[in-house]
């Protein structure tokens, strides 16, 4: 039981990260109907940006407080990753609107391969282990050193708190602001929205930027929690976050968060109780099963085929 509670906490931590990435997939799919295959690699790029800025701040400028450093890292990663995502949309996806259906997906796969190998070439192929920080652990149950102790680390608290705060801000932007209304209008009918004076290109760009910001927060938190990153670390989390988006119902933002938490829990529990070798296989199987048997997911709308 204690072990199960511990796994629950670990699963929710991982799930928060997947949820943040999944929002990027689901928003882009909602607004222009494409699977942004490169989103996982944007997440990986943001992790590298965060790592580099963190090292630069702590070694070159020697910032004393770890919390100020983390905050600066997160802001810098958000800004720089948005530039990446904006540029990708502008160069690789925007010219393809109105092209044949698979063109944006193929372009996105190309972009994903490019980003992965760009980071490999510029940063080297080896693992980058970050020195562990914020190792303080709170005991929710049991004594330190006991086998049945349930713990939560300050990192995990930061991850869950940051996710919750960001999701609230994000929810407010999408539901209450003019920008959010424009986004939902473009999602419903791009041509009609354009006729009514919505700047479609700008709205789509901002969608990519918001997705990248959430992914960069996920990247910073991923680095904080796991402390190691490699050039191909965007692929598997990317596919899992996409699975989360599909499981929650692609196009639905609450669905993406729910799906992320579920995938995180399933992965951690599977690794703990069934087989850690096959934990990725479990996530991939969920993707296949959901796509085949319930393509509209848990909270999504069924898709109507239009001629």
């Amino acid at each position, binding site marked *: 039981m204690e072990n199960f509670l511990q796994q629950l906490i670990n699963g929710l931590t991982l799930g928060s990260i997947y949820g943040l990435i999944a929002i990027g997939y689901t928003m882009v799919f909602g607004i222009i109907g494409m699977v942004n295959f490169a989103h996982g690699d944007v997440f990986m790029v943001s992790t590298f940006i965060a790592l580099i800025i963190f*090292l630069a701040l702590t070694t070159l400028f020697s910032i004393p407080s770890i919390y100020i450093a983390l905050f600066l890292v997160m802001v810098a990663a958000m800004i720089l990753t948005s530039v990446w995502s904006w540029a990708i949309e502008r160069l690789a996806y925007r010219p393809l609107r109105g092209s*044949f259906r698979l063109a944006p997906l193929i372009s996105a796969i190309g972009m994903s391969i490019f980003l992965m190998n760009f980071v490999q070439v510029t940063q080297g192929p080896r693992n980058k282990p970050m020195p562990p920080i914020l190792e303080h652990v709170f005991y929710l149950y049991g004594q330190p050193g006991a086998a049945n102790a349930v713990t939560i680390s300050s990192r995990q608290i930061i991850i869950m708190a940051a996710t919750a705060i960001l999701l609230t801000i994000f929810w407010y932007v999408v539901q209450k602001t003019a920008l959010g209304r424009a986004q939902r209008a473009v999602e419903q009918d791009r041509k009609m929205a354009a006729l009514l004076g919505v700047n479609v290109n700008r709205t789509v760009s901002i969608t990519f930027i918001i997705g990248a910001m959430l992914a960069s927060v996920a990247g910073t938190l991923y680095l904080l929690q796991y402390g190691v990153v490699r050039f191909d670390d965007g692929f598997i989390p990317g596919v899992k976050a996409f699975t989360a988006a599909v499981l929650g119902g692609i196009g639905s933002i609450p669905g993406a968060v729910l799906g992320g938490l579920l995938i995180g829990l399933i992965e951690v529990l599977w690794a703990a109780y069934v087989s850690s070798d096959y934990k990725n296989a479990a996530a991939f199987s969920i993707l296949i099963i959901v796509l085949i048997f319930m393509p509209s997911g848990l909270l999504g709308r069924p898709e109507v085929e239009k001629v």
Partner: protein
Amino acid sequence: MDVAAAKRPTRVQTALREASFAGLIAALLSFPILALRVEADMNNRLVLEERWPLVGVATLSIFVARFLSSILDDWRARALAIAGALSNLFAIGLMIFPDRPQIGLALWFGASGSTLMAAGLYFEREGRAAPERPIAAPQVAKTSRTSGLINLVGIVALGFVIAYPLVLLAWLGPQGSLKWINNYGVQILIYVMLGWGLNIVVGLAGLLDLGYVAFYAVGAYAYALLATTFGLSFWICLPLAGILAAFWGILLGFPVLRLRGDYLALVTLAFGEIVTIVLTNWVDLTNGEAGISSIPRVSFFGLPFTAADDGFAATFGIAFSPIHRTIFLFYLILVLALITNVVTIRLRRLPIGRAWEALREDEIACRSLGVNTTNTKLTAFALGAMFGGLAGAFFAVRQGFINPNSFTFMESATILAIVVLGGMGSQIGVALAAVAMVGGTEILRELDFLKVLFGNDFDPNQYRMLIFGLAMVVMMVWKPRGLISTREPSIFLKERRGVAGSLVKEGHG
């Protein structure tokens, strides 16, 4: 001068503004990733290595390229001028950085860069002087002439490929030609065959398959396991591997083929990954990461390629040399690839092939006209899988050792990139793309001056996938129908009418 004209920015001003913006973006993109490299030092602590000049180079290159492309009208002029300017910048860089000054190379790059720029300016002047050309009427005759030319190219290329190992053998001798036949010939032909196999699925039927390497793996492991466990010969295992792969294709195909195009792509991706995970973790069967070694090598229809008395060399009374096996492998994969090609070309003209192409263009129309879309997709999937399996069996017999690392997503992506660059549907295009992309990076390895420039640890393979990815994007943006496009339907009603490829909109695939 009137006020309105004075206020409007000139062309140069506009170009400068756009170029500055592009330069700023380039600087922001390259700032942390290019400028600072994270490396673990001796104590496994991370340290930053500063490389600020790279950011300057990237920013300046993008600035110059954007400036030239917005100030020049003619696309040839743009391409030439940008290439020339970058070459000149490179030459200046070679002169400035004093740790490895390369005066000769700098002069060479500077001169060729200036020539390119001059050629670009010539095109630009010519383009401005020429009157607006009327939009060309659809050229009906040209298509048939182009396809005749493509056929001719195909025949010449085939002749060249057949003669290739023998000419090399005569020219360089058994020792010198081994590398060229193996690294260039056999290696490229494997990718040609895989490209042609995937082309049936992606190019003809319009189903994006991101897990093609799974069938390649099924073929390779089928041969390896059948040969090492039951001692079956390659010639029995080869068709078995193909059948098994096709069987897996059907097994996967049944549930997934009613999905939409991009969902199908992701399900095949997941399937491919699951196959790799199972191959890695089912140690009892596949020996996991360690792989299967000492797979029986290929024999000349029963005669082994050994120095023994009953070997190939002794039987035919020639001196033993390892090159015999390589040449045999070369012709074997050539035959396998040609079978793939011939089957595809013939099937395109049968009802099933026409159904594939109709399906690619518009699935809903196809269903309305009574085409059984499930069966049509399934045959394409199974056939593509079968050729992937045959190529896999060949891969196993050539390497003699296989492990799951040969069957990763990157391999699928490479094959897909070849098909996309070849123009999705064009047989000769796929072959050319395989030669250019696989052969091209092998050639880069041979160029010594690149080592002088980039240091001794320069490995073109690192840049291969970088270029592949970028090329896929450029291809989609610039010419989504491929470089050599034969995506026109194979059959016409009554008369041929010229329809621009861009007008033929693709339906839900």
